[in-house]
């Protein structure tokens, strides 16, 4: 910002360029360990593992967000266990799809308002005609998330009764969330 107070700006010039001044201008780097659960996350992960048992295909996590990957067919069962089990994930906080081109990954962030823990469920779907069981019978919040995901990624949710377009208009062609959907540039006058 050039319109910053001129005093500091006038003082700055020489020092700013000098590499010796850098540590003073910026604080010490604080490195957070990568893909490592903290203590709280470990607890949640353990609880989650015991809840889901054999459903878990794969698991890791970051900070206090442990994630598990389950089979797409088992996802509903896993989500139900998470909701009703001791872990008590009563809120579907977020649901999203990630287009990895060769597959579409569904990610469900579950939250427990009773003990304030988050877990993340993941399930891989094939890129061709992806479909996964709807969670609308478990959480009402899933209705709109699923419609949105259906709009943007073309994921089908058997079990969700209303799959009309939510964000896009009726009759919109294609799924703009996918990486393959072109980001058209419009003609500017």
């Amino acid at each position: 910002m050039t319109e910053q107070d001129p005093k500091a700006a006038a003082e700055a010039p020489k020092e700013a360029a000098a590499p010796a001044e850098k540590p003073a201008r910026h604080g010490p780097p604080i490195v957070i360990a990568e893909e490592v659960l903290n203590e709280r996350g470990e607890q949640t992960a353990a609880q989650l593992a015991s809840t889901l048992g054999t459903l878990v295909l794969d698991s890791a996590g970051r900070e206090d967000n442990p994630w598990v990957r389950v089979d797409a067919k088992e996802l509903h069962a896993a989500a139900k266990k998470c909701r009703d089990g001791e872990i008590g994930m009563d809120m579907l906080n977020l649901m999203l799809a990630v287009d990895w081109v060769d597959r579409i990954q569904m990610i469900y962030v579950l939250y427990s308002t009773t003990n304030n823990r988050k877990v993340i469920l993941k399930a891989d779907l094939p890129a061709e005609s992806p479909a996964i069981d709807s969670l609308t019978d478990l959480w009402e919040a899933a209705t709109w998330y699923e419609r949105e995901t259906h709009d943007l990624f073309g994921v089908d949710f058997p079990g969700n009764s209303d799959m009309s377009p939510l964000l896009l208009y009726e009759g919109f062609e294609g799924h703009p969330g996918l990486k393959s959907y072109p980001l058209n540039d419009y003609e500017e006058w």
Partner: protein
Amino acid sequence: MTTESQFETVDMMLNMGPQHPATHGVFRMVLKVDGEKVIDVIPHIGYLHRGTERLAEVETYGQVITLFDRVDYIANLNNELAFVRAGEQIMEVEAPERAQYIRVILAELNRVASHLLFIGTYAIDLGAMTPVMYGFRERERIQNLFEHVTGARMMHNYMRIGGVKADVPDDFVPWVRQLIGEVRKGVEECDKLLSTNEVFLGRTRGVGVIDGPTAISCGLTGPSLRGSGVAYDVRKDDPYEIYPYLNYKVPVGENGDCWDRYYLRMLECYESLSMIEQCLDQFPEGPIMAAGRRIARPPAGEVFSHSENPRGDLGVYLVSDGTDKPYRVKIRPPSFCNLVGLATMTRGSYIADAVAILGSLDIVLGEVDR
């Protein structure tokens, strides 16, 4: 009364929006009404769908911040904070303390500004036209401060991954202290004018009731959820930035009606102001940007971080593939989730209540549609 069996009655579908004074932008709801009674509500969204999430995939991390300014255009700094925090997690840096204080002060101020706007527009929804002027007056003061600090009144682009763009001006602390006094007076004025007004109570008490478990199932967050008696506040339950070092109260409602949702926001204004005061007391000196000149390319990975927006739990799920552009950004828009509960709340009430309920959810369409 035998009329219902004798005559064939057809429910009227009443279309509200996208151009309707009370739908807060371009929200549309189709009300199925029987006379004045609302039987069902079918919400329609997407009129403001700008593809923010997809756009974020083709812009660098620094540029995405400008997009987040525009997601919820009433609480811009809170949104910036949400993205910047996700970015910091994935870049594995942490902002210096002073930067965190600046961010929290500004975010809380923005929360107050957003709530003031809510109070004003809610009063307009209910037919009172004065509170909006009082609310805007105070919001304007806050925006003047934002202009002084960030250079912009609404679209700030001020927070950075690893800190903030520029240090606050020298007169920041006294300015904010004075501002808090003025804003508190203004909030009190709105409070006196509206909160206990009998007509206002008649319009909001017992209207749009939603109980705790249903609210959780619908994904309601923020004051809308706390009104139903669920004490879920990200600042309290999943503390971030410097919130753990502050004393504050999280007001929780009991009835889950419109008045609770409204009044909790009013109380939150007071709480936010006192939090800012504490921040100013603790305001440290120091750098405002984390070390490392270019914080541009994170390692591959994914993070989920969430923070408390004025409207609720704003989550950002960030997937990085190791390039300088995010691979996928997913926003958890609190307004979007709060709207899921709209139909449940509105069924069985009057048309006028539908307006009151929609207003009490405090939606921002930019965020709902993204």
